[in-house]
């Protein structure tokens, strides 16, 4: 899950062709640091409701930005629920009903397990270079780190967020914050990466807070427990048959 979020936010910047050469260079460096061909992660999603806090554990397998498979491990209610993303299609398997359903249309706009993240947020797999134009807006200090501020404006019509702002650590080439905006300029969502650690030679955020800023509450945390970069993932993982296994 965490991986998918990072991918949704950052992976597509790999081939980002912004008008400003600086922005392009920065994003390429970020990509080099963050993106691996395949990943296996174990993570926790902490969803803060009005009355309670729910922690959902999951294990995810990711290949590029087109394929991902997630299995929920706990709590008991969610255990065995599986999610498969292949390109622009998403299936969810529920063990209680023993049914696999494909999410489409408005169902993709629903919240994932009651979190601040929608399925659609996880589904964006187009390269940002194809849908946004970017430039370096300036520099500032964020959480004690010097950062560049990148502004991305949609260059095509069919994007969910018209504008994105990304704060990138100048030393470690890792995004520390991202904000998503509506056409009117209204801030809609904010992602904050923290607990940056060096894992297998890469700087990587172990905690991501994803927040729908229009709602109350403290948002949803994704906490990375374990991560493996470039492991070999069998092909059968990314098949519908693996949902029922």
């Amino acid at each position, binding site marked *: 899950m965490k991986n998918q979020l990072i991918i949704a936010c950052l992976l597509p910047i790999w081939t980002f062709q912004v008008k400003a050469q600086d922005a392009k260079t920065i994003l390429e460096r970020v990509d080099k640091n963050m993106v691996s061909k395949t990943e296996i992660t174990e993570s926790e999603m902490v969803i803060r409701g009005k009355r309670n806090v729910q922690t959902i554990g999951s294990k995810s397998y990711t290949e590029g930005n087109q394929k991902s498979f997630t299995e929920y491990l706990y709590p008991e209610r969610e255990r065995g629920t599986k999610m498969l993303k292949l390109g622009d299609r998403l299936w969810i398997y529920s063990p209680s009903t023993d049914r696999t359903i494909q999410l489409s*249309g*408005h*169902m993709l706009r629903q919240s994932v397990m009651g979190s601040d993240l929608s399925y659609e947020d996880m589904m964006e797999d187009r390269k940002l270079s194809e849908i946004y134009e970017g430039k370096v807006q300036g520099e500032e200090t964020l959480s004690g780190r010097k950062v560049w501020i990148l502004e991305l404006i*949609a260059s095509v*019509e*069919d*994007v*969910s*967020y*018209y504008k994105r702002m990304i704060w990138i650590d100048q030393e470690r080439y890792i995004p520390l914050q991202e904000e*998503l905006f*509506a*056409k*009117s300029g*209204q801030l*809609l969502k904010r992602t904050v990466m923290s607990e940056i650690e060096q894992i297998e030679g890469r700087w990587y955020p172990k905690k991501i807070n994803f927040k*729908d800023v*229009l*709602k*109350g*509450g403290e948002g949803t945390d994704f906490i990375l427990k374990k991560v493996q970069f470039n492991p070999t993932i069998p092909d059968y993982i990314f098949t519908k048959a693996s949902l029922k296994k």
Partner: protein
Amino acid sequence: MKLAFILAYKNLIGAGLRTWLNVGILAFAFILIIFYNGLLDGWNQQARLDTINWEIGYGELRTDNYDPFDPFSIQDAHKAYKSEEFPMLTPILIRQASIYPHGRMISIALKGIPVDQSQLKLPTSFLTSEKETIPAIIGKRMADAAKLKEGEEVLLRWRDKNGTFDAMNITIVKIFDSNVGNIDASQIWISLEQLQTMTGLKEEATYLVANEGYSHEKISGWTFVSQETLLQNINDIIASKKISGSVMYLMLLAIALLAIFDTQVLSVFRRQKEIGTYVAMGMTPGQVVVLFTMEGSMYSFLAMLVGGLVGIPIFTYLAMNGISFPDVTQDMGVTMASRIFPVFGVQLILGTMVLVIVSATIVSFLPAKKIAYMNPVEALKGKLQ
């Protein structure tokens, strides 16, 4: 017949308390039947009128892919229309959106309607505003659910035709009170022109509401749903309520009729000498049967009288002042006024009278027909037969 009527009347009055107990329970059943059906008729009449005035007009012309029972159909349910081609229709555009009152997210149906429309009772004239925010009207239930007040601003988030998010404040300029939950719960109404601009769906609508003068001719891409089809839900609810309610009052009527039946059986058994005397004095057995049947059916006439004396003041009061009902049913989407004025039509009253009289007469006749087979001499002697 006149003699039979007088004799029957005297016999009944002479029976005293027994008669009045039978009459009482029959009168109660009579009042209950009229009250319950009158209440349902009143509900039906008000619900139909409110639904026509607030929601459906004289039918709806829907885009082919719009299904009001499938929220997932809303995304693609919009089609271009030319207002000059549809002068008799009020266009309405529906989009899905979210509002964020007091830090909560509520999913809503955002509906655009012409500000100058007069087909529906929605107070759309309030949708013109000089303010920078978008003027919006909502129903009482929506206001309660979102805890919104008139004049309050709330952030609205929607998507344009390409799926791009946009957000802006709306101002609640009017909270209307309607019995029709379908145009209220989880809905926000804004100017059609405004919504078309916001979403980039110029000159497009999801459905159009017909007025009285509209006569439908087949239009490609649009499906007309008649007023009667749209009211079918209400008809079905009322029909179902009538059937379930009838079980209750028919049981009560059955108890009353059973009491009459018992009384008749007892009369035929205990009044054999009297029967024999009638025959000895020249009455045919058939005339005696008529006499006893008349006695039985006279319970129903007396019940009408007592029911009238008790019921008319009550019904008159209820018809004038109505009966208050909680809002729960409206919140569930059932169109029901918070105060229902029962309708006691002539057809209902006459129908109930016929039902009570005929059923009382039948149950009176069944024991009395035994008289026709009696031996008059044995009867006169009072011997059991």
